């Protein structure tokens, strides 16, 4: 089945088997996500891609695209929820970007940038989590795991190994390694496995690769995640971006709402007016 759906006022075509998020990406319409990855079965755990479809709340990564759907993604209330979800991910783990090797290449960080997240809002958990650096080529810093399950799915579905699993529930949830000692060195993971490279944060890192690209020249230092995600999809589909409009009430992106890269830091200082803010 194929047809078109309407996302934030843009007419988006879809092909057989595509979910809403994949149809959107192919058309250059970015819906934030962390647990989703093209080529992987839908999982729907992070809830960042929550959208309104014909008035009902759904995750765009799990719902198949259907002809005539009206999807709202970029509304203020959904953006607010996404920012709060991202802030929860930050306070539940220990995400110190200045000391993380993945900084600049991290999808969690990039999603937070996209949502203009300037603070963590909630009290920090400072959860006690261990580092497993036992493997010669790969390390796990559990501080940064967001339980997206991508490494679990990669190991099982792509590598055919089942190295990883998620154990426990709620606050006791943790990523575990399938080996007699529970350590990565005793598992059969290899540095060439997809599971070693699929982590959207700095939780699973390949050793001796951290500074191949210097800070400031990394993916999301150069391009917003909305561009990166959609350009890859557009190139893959061999399609140019830009489709017809289906609703005149299309909403601007968060960065557009913030004024975009214009004269915010022009070298001028206005005369001192009265401060208008109060506590």
């Amino acid at each position, binding site marked *: 089945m194929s047809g078109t759906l309407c996302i934030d006022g843009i007419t988006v075509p879809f092909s057989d088997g595509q979910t809403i998020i994949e149809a959107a990406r192919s058309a250059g319409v970015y819906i934030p996500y962390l647990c989703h990855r093209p080529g992987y079965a839908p999982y729907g755990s992070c809830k960042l891609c929550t959208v309104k479809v014909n008035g009902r709340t759904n995750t765009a990564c799990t719902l198949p695209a259907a002809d005539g759907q009206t999807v709202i993604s970029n509304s203020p209330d959904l953006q607010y929820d996404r920012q709060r979800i991202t802030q929860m991910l*930050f306070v539940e783990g*220990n*995400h*110190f*970007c*200045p*000391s*993380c090797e993945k*900084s*600049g290449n991290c999808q969690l*960080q990039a999603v*937070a*940038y996209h949502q*203009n997240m*300037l*603070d*963590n*809002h909630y*009290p*920090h958990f*400072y959860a*006690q989590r261990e580092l497993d650096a036992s493997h010669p080529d790969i390390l796990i810093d559990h501080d940064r795991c967001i339980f997206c399950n991508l490494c679990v799915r990669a190991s099982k579905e792509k590598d055919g190994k089942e190295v990883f699993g998620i154990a426990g529930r709620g606050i006791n949830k943790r990523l575990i390694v399938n080996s007699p000692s529970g350590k990565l060195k005793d598992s059969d993971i290899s540095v060439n496995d997809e599971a070693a490279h699929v982590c959207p944060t700095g939780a699973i890192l390949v050793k001796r690769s951290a500074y191949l690209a210097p*800070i400031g020249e990394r993916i999301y*230092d150069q391009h*917003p995640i909305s561009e990166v995600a959609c350009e890859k999809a557009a190139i893959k589909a061999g399609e140019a971006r830009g489709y017809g409009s289906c609703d005149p009430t299309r909403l601007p992106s968060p*960065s557009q709402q*913030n*004024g*975009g*890269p*214009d004269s*915010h*830091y022009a*070298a*001028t*200082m*206005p*005369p*001192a*007016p*009265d*401060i*208008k*803010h*109060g*506590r």
Partner: protein
Amino acid sequence: MAAKIKIATTSLAGCFGCHMSFLDIDERLLKLADVVEFDRSPLTDIEHCGPCDIGLIEGGVCNSENVHVLREFRANCKILVAVGACAINGGLPALRNFFKLEDCLLEAYQDGIGVDNPQIPNDPELPLLLDKVRPVHEIVKIDYFMPGCPPSADVFWSYLSALIEGRDPTLPYELVHYD
């Protein structure tokens, strides 16, 4: 001539890198000096801040003195801005949160390699350490957050320009950095 805007700044549990970045606005400091006056800051060496329009807080909260200073800033500043990663999420000083405070003190002052005359400092003049380093928003209400480690000079300029004009500060994508 309109009265100058009063700005106070302080560093709690931080490295002063945010202040250094602030100074990196370079010649724009002269434009700033035309419209603002500094209250408590490293430039003035004033001990307690008075009534101010804008307070800039660098660093997290790691001891009792940090709590007092932060509360004094909140009581005196119309607008309070958390500056940099340490103020926003505890940053580098918060890495001690994963150890017991007692273990940190023992390692630093008693058992650590190269420690001479080992003893835990116990002078009543010294502020008491908190069991954990906390971001400033967990102690007082914060009006704005300036991310970065440190925020770049352009971020400082963008925020101060907006606040002085009475606008909500916003950052374009290329200025938002957590590292």
